């Protein structure tokens, strides 16, 4: 589904090199310390950064030179996922109509998405009136509604308390199972990765230090993974 082929990104004092594949419906956790290149990798997949070498292939289509707005994916950031002047309903509706001209059918779909994440009653609230977890749910509802085959998560739940984070990961897992969404999630917490993801990729200093199926890796964890456990 996603192929990051011989990808190379070079900066003044940092180089990211990776080569991996994520099958349709799989969920890949990208683990690494701060500065290891996790978010840079996500930015390259999303099209915010252009590869100096290599290719990004999504659903069999080479999108390496495709601008970010045209790539078939959704992304959630740690912050800034919602527009503060818009209601939860409008924030979700942006996933379907960026001009917010909604017909009855569209409005029904937005309400359905909000209902799916348990926020049907909060539709008229603005982000400032929602808790951190509720804001994450609104962003998830929009992602769900957009129906893009690939979802990128750049630590969107990192600021939530552990209980809420576990709840959000469980909800995300349900949504992925329901929709067959392919997922790449950046994290610095192996337990979060284990909760949601089927595969693991460990980055160290811009290089892939480890990759494989989560179950295989955790069955006999290599030395390099010990500090994360």
């Amino acid at each position, binding site marked *: 589904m996603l192929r990051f082929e011989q990808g190379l990104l070079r900066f003044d004092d940092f180089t990211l090199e990776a080569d991996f594949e994520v099958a349709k419906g799989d969920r890949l956790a990208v683990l690494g310390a701060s500065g290891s290149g996790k978010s840079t990798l996500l930015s390259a997949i999303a099209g915010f950064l252009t590869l100096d070498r290599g290719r990004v292939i999504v659903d069999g289509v080479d999108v390496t030179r495709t*601008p970010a707005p045209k790539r078939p994916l959704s992304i959630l950031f740690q912050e800034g996922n919602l527009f503060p002047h818009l209601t939860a309903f409008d924030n979700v509706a942006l996933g379907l109509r*960026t001009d917010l001209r909604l017909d009855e059918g569209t409005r029904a779909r937005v309400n359905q998405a909000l209902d799916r994440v348990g926020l049907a009653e909060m539709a008229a609230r603005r982000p400032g009136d929602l808790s951190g977890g509720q804001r994450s749910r609104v962003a998830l509802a929009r992602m769900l509604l*957009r129906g893009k085959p690939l979802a990128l998560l750049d630590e969107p739940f990192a600021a939530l308390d552990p209980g809420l984070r576990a709840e959000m990961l469980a909800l995300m897992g349900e949504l992925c199972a329901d929709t067959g969404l392919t997922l790449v999630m950046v994290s610095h917490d192996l337990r979060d990765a284990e909760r949601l993801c089927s595969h693991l990729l460990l980055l160290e200093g811009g290089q892939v230090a480890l990759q494989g199926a989560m179950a295989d890796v955790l069955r006999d964890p290599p030395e390099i993974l010990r500090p994360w456990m």
Partner: protein
Amino acid sequence: MARSAQPVGISAWAGAAVAALVLTVIAVPLGAVMLRADASSGLGPADWAAVRFTVGQAFLSALFSVGLAIPVARALARRNFRGRSALIALMGAPFILPVIVAVLGLLTVFGRQGALSEILRLFGLPGVEIYGLHGVVLAHVFFNLPLAVRLILQGWLAIPVERFRLAATLGFSSRDIGRHMERPMLRNVLPGAFLVIFLICTTSFAVALTLGGGPRATTVELAIYQAFLFDFDLGRAALLGVVQVAICVIAGVFVLWVATPNAIGTGLDQPVERWDGQSRAARLLDGAFITAAALFLLLPLTAVVLRGAGAIATMPPSIWVAALRSIALSLVTASVAVGMALPMAMLIARGRARGFLETIGALSIAVSPLVIGTGLFLILRPIAGPTDMALPVTGLVNALAALPFVLRALVPAVEQAEAGYGRVALSLGLSGPNYLRHVLLPRLRRPLGFGAGLAAALSMGDLGVITLFAAPQQGTLPLEMYRLMGSYRTDDAQGAALLLLVLSLAIFWIFDRGGRVNAAV
């Protein structure tokens, strides 16, 4: 609210004493103006015309400055090009640029005999007329467009980069970005920017003095000056002073009511990463706005440099003497401003009566230097000859005028230093002068240098209160230059303008640079 650990006891007393002194130096002259105001005859038609002109020109100046700044700031926010940082730095220059120099530059480009008129005449069109309302507005836009650009640019750059990335993945068009990201930001930033510029323009004196005048283009401040010097009608001057304070207080209340962005903020050198506006038309439009803004700012200054270079060597000795007087005055101003600001900043950083102290520090924005000068004139007249006190009074009033800006630079740095090192110093028993010398001052070198440079440069270019007091042989460089312009000695005025420009920039640079050298991080 929790207060920071504070090892300095003496500074609190010093800060309170300085705050009391500032309040006295502003309130007593203001009281003298109010007592002397001749309200019996009320405002005459000419006075009402001055009020209307003051408010009208300030409104138009703010409107044009902010309106034109929007596309320029947007272009700077989304384009990365060589010279971008230099252009943004240039946008900060008008703040320390002497008004009279800029006016001469504008006259050289936009005046009756200016370059623009020459070009128009080549095509058989009449030349432009710069004196009057449009000249005053033009000069105010010259000074405040850069300020507006910096304020609005800060708003643009404050939009989180994630939001632009999110917009890209959601497929936002330029129109969507305008609606969901830019307009909400502008709704927050524009009222504050408009009101700050409106307030600045209501107190503008030197521009009105040089480009206004006459019954149809007199501001209240200019009317005070005229009542003083031409009519020697102190009652009317004082009454107009009260009117001026009323205008400033009303505008000031609006400024405080609406959150105002900070123009001194840093971090304007990184363009926002965004995916809209990549079309050829958008690039061309942005390029046109950036070029037009750069030309608007650079052409008058270039004209001053080119014309002045040929005339500076033949200037009469009196100009050089005035220059020395201005340098001495600006050094005194910088010392007084920093001397007042440091203890006040330490007290403000302590958090005690913060709002009250900040209001005292900002009073000189609401009570214009000319009104304070009028009050001091009224107080000093029975005791001493006002001309004898011209330079000390000018230095003091200039220091008061610079105080809000120096405080704005110092307070965050003091807070940061005390948050970082206050408790350690307390545990080591470092207090009083030792704390100041070993902990605080090394960390305040940069803002102190910047603040002192700002105060010195503002004083160097000041053409305000000195006009009320100075005898013919006591002129500062800006006043001498104004007198040269008034007597049509254009070459000498051009030379003086270049000298004043160089001195203002140099004195700012020396202080600012001095603060940076070996500054603690």
